[in-house]
Every structure is written in structure tokens, then in C-alpha cells.
């Protein structure tokens, strides 16, 4: 179903972090941007579709006023809003927002870090663009910061702080089907496996809280009102977002899941784990019976590699890319 393409070499290896691959497709320029986090650096590659041009850039987590301590980056993700694309980088010290090519930093938000470290680690993790003008970022305390983003310029403001989760945020995702009918706009996940479903607005509204089972949910997606969640036990669960009804449970992987992605036009689902396997599934909704079917389509094994990032490169799922711990390349697969 898929075959391996030529890999893209990156300047350093990928770190073992959840959802460690960002992809942004820029159709008008026939380019795709990729981001991979290595410790305190984000490796960015811009790859032309004809496979002939690659350009690299590295972003450091250089926060102002911090002289020497290195700040490890937890995640780098693209936020595609209707008016603009941005790159968000979260670390132990704060949140940086760049133009999508990484050229200019437009916003910096510092986290409250105590003078002497407390038992709880402090960091930001979990990034999602929501609707027209919001970017949401999760914090280790469980709080979610909602930023209001203007269509141009750097006048980004903190609009709201959502305090619902009691454990560190792991991942967040916005409704990606493009449908305006879906009530739920955003789902957030935490280290206890708890899922919160939100409706966006000037004040975000909590629609539902789906309790976890004491196992971290490391990656989450929202598509056509269905939450797709990947857990440390290797399970994938599909819930109806607003009601919390469990549609399906998949014993998908033998180790901790690190990344999920959905191709919104085709309903393809990608899952990747520390067990060195990437799996492709197909989701189909039957509105009449209000059910969701999951079918397994394909496996790829990246030998001896604990995978940390996997994303489709386009909305149909025609191609996908994978990163692994200690690997200095982005592996690509395309449909045969």
C-alpha cells in the first residue's frame, strides 16, 4: 500500500518526545516544511515537492534574559489559521511563536518558574490552532493557555487560562474535518489519560470530560466529532467527543504510543509507537447508526527504532513521514 521514499537528512537526531514531527504543506510554493526537536534545538527543513531542493534552519530555545541554562524543548508544531501559518515551540521556560518559516519570532510567553525547583517539573506541551484565531498551549500544571492571534503582526494576547486538567497536558487537537457543524472544537489530553472536550469562543466552554484510566494519553486527534486517543498501554480509543461514548478500542501497539495523525479528507489514521511500528488504519463513520468503524490497512516497521513522530504530509494521506529517537533522518512513505 505504501513504499519507502528517499529520507530527508536532518542536522541532528530526533529526541524521544511525544508527537515529535511537525509538517506544514505550502501548496502555492510547492514546498513542505518539517520540524523535528533535538534537545534544545528545532531542526527545520523546507523540502520542495520535486525532491530537488532542501534547505535547513535551526531554532534554539534562546529565551531572553536567560544567560546560561539550557532549556529543553518539549514540542514544536505548526498552527495553520485561516489568515496565517505560525510555528509554536514549547519548552521548559516558555512558549515561542515564530512565522512559519522560522525566520522571525513574533511572540514569547514566559512560564512561571520558581527560583528553586519544586518536585513538579515545569514545562509547556500540547499545541493546537483552534478555529479562526486561537492558539492553545498546555502546561505541566494541567492549565491550558488560550492565545488570541491577530491576522497579522505580533499583537498576540493571552485571552484565557483554562483550568480543568489536574495532570500535565500531553497533547491537544482541534477538529480537523473542516466541517462547521461539529460542536466540539478542541480536545485536550493529560498524563492521567483524561480528555477534555471544548467549544472555542471568547470564553471557551467545557463540553465534556472523559475520564482516563491512570494511563497517560500521549497523542490525541479530533475528527468529525470523534476523539481518537493513543495511550501508554499501546491502546487506541475512539470516543464520541460530546457524549463520551466509547466507539472502539484497538489493541494497536506493544509499547507506548508516541504519535497519532489523521488525514481529514480520507479518514486515514496513522499511529506510531516505541515498538518500532507505524500502522495505517481507516476510520469510517455511519451517522445512521452513530457508529465508527476502524479497519487496519498497513504496517511499516522501522527496524530497531523507537518512533517518536508520524504525520501525514497531505490531507488525503497519500504520503506520510516518520521520525525516531536517535535517528537523523525523516523517513518518508508514499502510496504505491
Amino acid at each position, binding site marked *: 500500500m505504501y513504499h519507502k521514499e528517499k529520507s530527508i537528512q536532518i542536522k541532528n*537526531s530526533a*529526541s*524521544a*518526545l511525544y508527537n515529535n514531527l511537525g509538517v506544514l504543506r505550502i501548496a502555492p510554493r510547492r514546498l513542505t516544511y518539517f520540524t523535528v526537536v533535538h*534537545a534544545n534545538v528545532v531542526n527545520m527543513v523546507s523540502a520542495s515537492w520535486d525532491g530537488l531542493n532542501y534547505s535547513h534552519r535551526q531554532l534554539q530555545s534562546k529565551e531572553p534574559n536567560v*544567560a*546560561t*541554562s*539550557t532549556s*529543553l524543548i*518539549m514540542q514544536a508544531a505548526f498552527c495553520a489559521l485561516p489568515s496565517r501559518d505560525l510555528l509554536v515551540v514549547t519548552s*521548559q521556560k516558555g512558549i515561542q511563536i515564530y512565522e512559519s518559516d522560522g525566520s522571525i519570532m513574533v511572540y514569547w510567553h514566559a512560564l512561571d518558574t520558581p527560583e528553586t*525547583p*519544586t*518536585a*513538579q*517539573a515545569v514545562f509547556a506541551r500540547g499545541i493546537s490552532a483552534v478555529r479562526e484565531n486561537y492558539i492553545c498551549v498546555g502546561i505541566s500544571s494541567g492549565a491550558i493557555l488560550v492565545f488570541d492571534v491577530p491576522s497579522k503582526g505580533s499583537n498576540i494576547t493571552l485571552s484565557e487560562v483554562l483550568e480543568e486538567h489536574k495532570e*500535565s497536558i500531553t497533547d491537544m487537537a482541534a477538529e480537523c474535518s473542516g466541517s462547521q457543524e461539529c460542536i466540539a472544537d478542541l480536545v485536550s489530553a*493529560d*498524563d*492521567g489519560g483524561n480528555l477534555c472536550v471544548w467549544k472555542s469562543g471568547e470564553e471557551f466552554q467545557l463540553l465534556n470530560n472523559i475520564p482516563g484510566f*491512570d*494511563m*497517560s494519553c*500521549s497523542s490525541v486527534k479530533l475528527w468529525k466529532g470523534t476523539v481518537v486517543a493513543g495511550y*501508554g*498501554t*499501546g*491502546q487506541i480509543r475512539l470516543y464520541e467527543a460530546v457524549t463520551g*461514548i*466509547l*466507539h*472502539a*478500542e*484497538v*489493541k*494497536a*501497539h*506493544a*509499547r*507506548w504510543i508516541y504519535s497519532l495523525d489523521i488525514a481529514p479528507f480520507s479518514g486515514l489514521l496513522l499511529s506510531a509507537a516505541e*515498538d*518500532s*511500528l507505524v500502522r495505517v488504519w481507516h476510520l469510517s463513520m455511519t451517522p445512521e*447508526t*452513530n*457508529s*465508527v*468503524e*476502524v*479497519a*487496519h490497512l498497513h*504496517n511499516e*516497521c522501522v*527496524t*530497531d*527504532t*523507537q518512533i517518536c513522530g508520524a504525520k501525514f504530509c497531505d490531507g488525503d494521506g497519500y504520503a506520510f513521514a516518520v521520525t525516531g*529517537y*536517535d535517528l537523523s533522518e525523516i523517513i518518508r512513505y508514499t502510496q504505491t
Partner: protein
Amino acid sequence: MSVRTLPLVFINLGGEMLYILDQRLQAQNTSEDNSEKVMNDIVGTMFNKAFMDELLKPQQLYSHRTLKTVLTRIAHASIMRLNPASMDRLYELMVMAFKYQVFLCPRPKDLLLISYNHIDTIREFVKDTPVVVNQVDETHRKIIEVYSSLSEGEFQLLRQTLLIFFQDMHVRVSLFLKIQVQNPNGRFALSTSGPVPHGTEVPGLIRTFDSKGREVRRSEFPTGGSYSSPIREGCFELHGDRIIRLGLNMYTVNHPEETHTSKAPSVKVTDDTPNLLAKEELNLLARLMGSMKAENKPKAETGFRINLFTTDEEEEEAGASCGAEESLFGVINIQAMQDEQAATELARIAGQFAEQQEQPENPSGNKGDDLLAMMDDL
């Protein structure tokens, strides 16, 4: 990232160091008295209450250089002496072993079982000295107390912090190559068969439910591996069967060549740490060095020499090429040195920190001087 890594790092790296030293002591037919003294001295220093208390404070994991300095000091609590080249090679071995254990750790929480395997074996090494056994037990109890309440997510963060620390290290270790847990390119083998971790179910099943929660369909899918049910869970108490084998002593007395190391081809041999030592890092170093008891002033006449490799020829070669990054085999040469030499050695290491400490933001250049003074006192 995680602020709880240091105690586990020292227990596991220290444990690996003791495994290697124990193998060498035995292979060299060192007298039981001397062996016991070396082990007791090192374990006593490592599990010293003040030292452990410092480690247990929530803090970041700093650079390899800091760790290496502290581990060198721990080793020097015994009558052995390590020159920097020896320590470098020994450190590589220790780190690669721990990296292997962390990488293959079935569940993040099993990092504790790996640590307990190390502690159990260390306890065996010093079993004839009740005072030291007590120290080990006390530390073990504290570790249980501090770590038992961490969630799986927090353990995974700890593990991720460690993996970042070990990133890009692909030194090939003879033993690992021999038992095929490591490939010739330096990467560890990850199997797609065998028992799944405790708490995970064997993959291969899709279950669909209706809106009332009743299962309406089951289907299987090919996993591309051959997995089996989990084995029973290991014991997290002070004593018990840990079940998992990671963290146990892999080295055997009759095969000294097991500790040969070589750099994987085309890998840059650079220490990734920043040249500036952060203020926090220097503080940590000072606290750790200060908390280690300085009572072990070795008598000059009991110094003895340990080879990590059997032939004098290899040692000479190593001595000649100890700076060469191209050398294929790391030869660790452990030799006894006089006290004064030891102090000079440590002062030289400390001096490196002071020289490279360029912190325009922090005008108190006293930090480096204090550290030097402290080390001279040790």
C-alpha cells in the same frame, strides 16, 4: 524536563561502574581484602546519606562533564586511581550500559526495577560490612519513598530526559555485540516479539461498541510481530524478585575482553555539552563534592594497579594514543597514584571548569576558586 533523574542516574551508573571494577578486581586475582576494601569504600561514598540527600533534591540533569567529575571522585574514594583517559572509557561503558537498559525498559516505571537490580547486586558486594549495607538499605528505602508516588506519565518524562541525555552515543561494547543486543552500527536491537509489558495487552484486536457500551464486533489484524502475554510484575519492595533482567550484572569474570569498546564508524566524537557551565550546574557540583565524606585518605603503601585489559602492550598503546579520537579500542588503565598526584589530578579537572567559565552575566568569578579550594581540601 524531569527534576528527579539524578538519584537514579547515580545508582545505575555507579552500579555499572562497580560491575566493571568487580570484574577487573577478580580477573586480576586481587586479594579478597583489597577487593572488599575497594568495593566498601566506593559504595560507602556513593550511598553516603549527605550525598544522597543532595541528589534527591528536585533539580535538572546537567552535563556529562559534571557527572563524570563526581563519579571520578567517587571512584577515588577507594585506593584506586583513574587517569582521565581511563575515566573517559569507563564512563562510556557505564553510560552505554545504562542507555541500553533505559532504551529497552518495558514500562517507564520499570526504571525503578532496573535501579533495584543494581542496588540488590551492590548489596551483595558489600554484604560482609554491615555499616555499608545499612547505608544501602537506607538509600533504597528513601528511593522507594520518593519514587513510589510518581505516575507512569512522570516516569516516562524521566525516561525521556535520560534518553535526551544519552542521545547520539553509539559506542560499541564488545559484550553487547557478542550477545547481540547491539548492532555493529552501535544501535541497540529492538525486538518485535516476546512478552508485552505488564499492563499492556497483546496487540492485534479491534473491538467496536454500540452507544450502550455493548461490544458489537471484533476483528483481528496482523501485527507484524509475534507478541505474547506479559509475565508477572516485578517486586518494588526492599527485597524481592524484580523479574526483569535489565540492570543485573552482565559481565563475567572469565571474559575480560567484554569491556572492550570502540566508537561506531562515522560518528562525531563530540561532547554535546555547552562550554559554559551554568551557574546552577556549578552549584550542584560544589554541593555534591562537598557532601562526599573526605575520610578516605588512602595509605600510599596499599596502592595497587588494575588493568582493564590483559596485556601490557595494549596498555602502552593506550597510553600513547589516549587522546586520539581515531583509536579503535579504548583501553582503560587504572593505576595507583600517590595522594599528592591525586589531588593535583582533581585540581586540574576543576581547573578546566574555572578556565572555561565565561559568564558575563555572573561577575562572581569566585565560584571557580571556591570549587578549586574545596577540591584541594578533599
